[in-house]
């Protein structure tokens, strides 16, 4: 159903220590092109640290890894050009207009004015956003902002998009719509790497990894995980694993 099983993210024995504290402990996994890879874990399990290493924001202490074919130690600048990123703060510039945000990020990723304009027009129609085009971002409702932030993060057609808890604070229906956009992005060949703590969202992923205390304790498709842990849903799987955690939530 998806394209050839080309590897986009490959990580081997990746470790990150801050002093005595091992935030990410020897993790290994692969993500294929066009896949939706769910990255789950309780607060403080090391999700965000792991993700930051993949984005070139943080240098790993040990291990190997490539993202979009580039080495995470040696070529972080090339990785940055090939990825999109949306953080939990859905960071848009609130005092800029909708189209100005798109123009800014298009410019940062080196797109030319004509392409930016054309893609902005397309996007506004697709999102049914034409009336909001000239509004300041801060005047939009949260659900709109999240959709817009996601659109900005894939505006430059990255190979991989990293979503750090993208749907915090919105209702299940808005979340469901947001996930339709994610599916749409994968149809364009964009690989989606997403952290979440909503277990209904975990069900939407192609494969899910669950981190406990810096280690990956489980990694498979949601269906296989449910069988393996003899659970009715992903929430039960998660509960069984998270109970083993020794670290206190930070």
């Amino acid at each position, binding site marked *: 159903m998806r394209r050839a099983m080309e590897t986009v993210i490959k990580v081997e024995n990746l470790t990150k220590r*801050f002093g005595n504290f091992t935030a990410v402990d020897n993790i290994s996994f692969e993500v294929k092109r066009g896949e939706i890879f769910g990255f789950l874990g309780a607060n403080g399990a090391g999700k965000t640290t792991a993700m*930051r290493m993949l*984005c*070139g*924001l*943080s*240098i790993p202490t040990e291990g190997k890894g490539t993202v979009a074919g580039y080495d995470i130690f040696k070529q972080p*600048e090339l990785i*940055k*050009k090939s*990825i999109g*990123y949306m*953080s*939990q*703060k859905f*960071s*848009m*510039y*609130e*005092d*800029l207009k909708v189209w*100005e945000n798109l*123009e*800014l*990020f*298009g*410019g*940062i*990723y*080196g797109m*030319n004015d004509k392409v930016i304009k054309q893609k902005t027009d397309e996007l506004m129609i697709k999102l049914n956003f034409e009336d909001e085009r000239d509004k*300041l971002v801060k005047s939009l409702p949260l659900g709109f902002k999240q959709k817009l932030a996601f659109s900005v993060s894939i505006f430059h057609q990255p190979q991989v998009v*990293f979503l750090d808890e993208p749907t915090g604070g919105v209702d299940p229906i808005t979340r469901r719509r947001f996930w339709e956009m994610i599916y749409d992005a994968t149809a364009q060949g964009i690989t989606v790497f997403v952290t979440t703590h909503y277990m209904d969202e975990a069900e939407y992923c192609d494969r899910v990894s669950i981190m406990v205390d810096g280690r990956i304790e489980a990694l498979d498709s949601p269906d296989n995980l449910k069988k393996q842990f003899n659970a009715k849903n992903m929430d039960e799987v998660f509960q069984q694993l998270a109970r083993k955690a020794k670290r206190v939530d930070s």
Partner: protein
Amino acid sequence: MKQLFSFIRKEFHHIFRDKATVMILLMMPIIQIILFGFALSQEVKNTKVVVLSTTSDEATRRIINRIDASEYFDVVGTVHNSDEIDAAFRDGKAKLAMIFEDHFSENLKHTGKSHIQLIADATDPNAANSFMFYASNIISNYQQDISQPQSGGGMIVPEVKMLYNPQMLSAFNFVPGVLGMIMILICAMMTSIAIVREKEMGTMEILLVSPMKPMYTILSKISPYFVLSVINFATIMLLSVFVLKVPIAGSFISLLIVSLLYIFVALALGLLISTVTNSQLAAMMISGMGLMIPVMLLSGMIFPIENMPAFLRFISNFVPARWYIDAVKTIMIKGLGLGAVLKDVGVLLLMATVLVTISLKKFKVRLE
């Protein structure tokens, strides 16, 4: 380059959409100049004087008239004994009391010697010093006038000339001071807040994940404040020349060069502050406490550096405003060229280099 221009445009949007802040930034120099120029004047004018004189004679009247006619004094009344003088001081009705001895005029004629006692309210010592100086001057002028016919008696008359600022206008002192303060406030404080705001909002993370070069981020962050500072520099110059009548005695180009250098130092300071703080509040506190107070107190703007204890004098060497204010005074008031401010320029250049080097090193490309 496209990256840089998109980003600079965004920075201007940030500032100019925040109308209140823009207004404050542009009005601040005007308000400060007006405050310092008119309200907080250090010149002593219209000091209230009471007179105690038992014999109303010619010499007494003449002296009182001269005192009253001067713009520095206002004779508000006469009193009859020392209790009334005390009362006048206590009630704030007078700052200066003049007491003529009995038979003042006669004594002066017959013995050639007479006494006036001057009593000042010295709660504000600087002001008391100034008006005492003015009063003594008026009295000795009178003395010279009446003693002129029999000159040749070996009297020494000092002729005082106040160089560069003949009218002793305090504007000559505070215009450079206000320049030094405004630039620091706008460049250092606003730049640091603008950068830290991106950290607080989480947009800095997005920038760090993007291929945006950190140097571009910095350049575009400081560019609008650079423009604002140049506008403010122009405002202050226009106000000081046309409203306060402080002329630019030296070359305007030299003044501009020194000011641009100072703006650069201030921007670098702002950048440094932004690399060591993570909240807008902290950035504001550091620039407020760490920059404004030294600029006000240790730059020579209000208190002369020569009078400070050795320790504070040493500290003042590290306050950029001190060197800038000195250079502005030399060029603007004394009318000397760049050659006369080489030391100031050198120190500012050194500061700029050190600050830029440290802050570029510290500006984190990665989040840790």
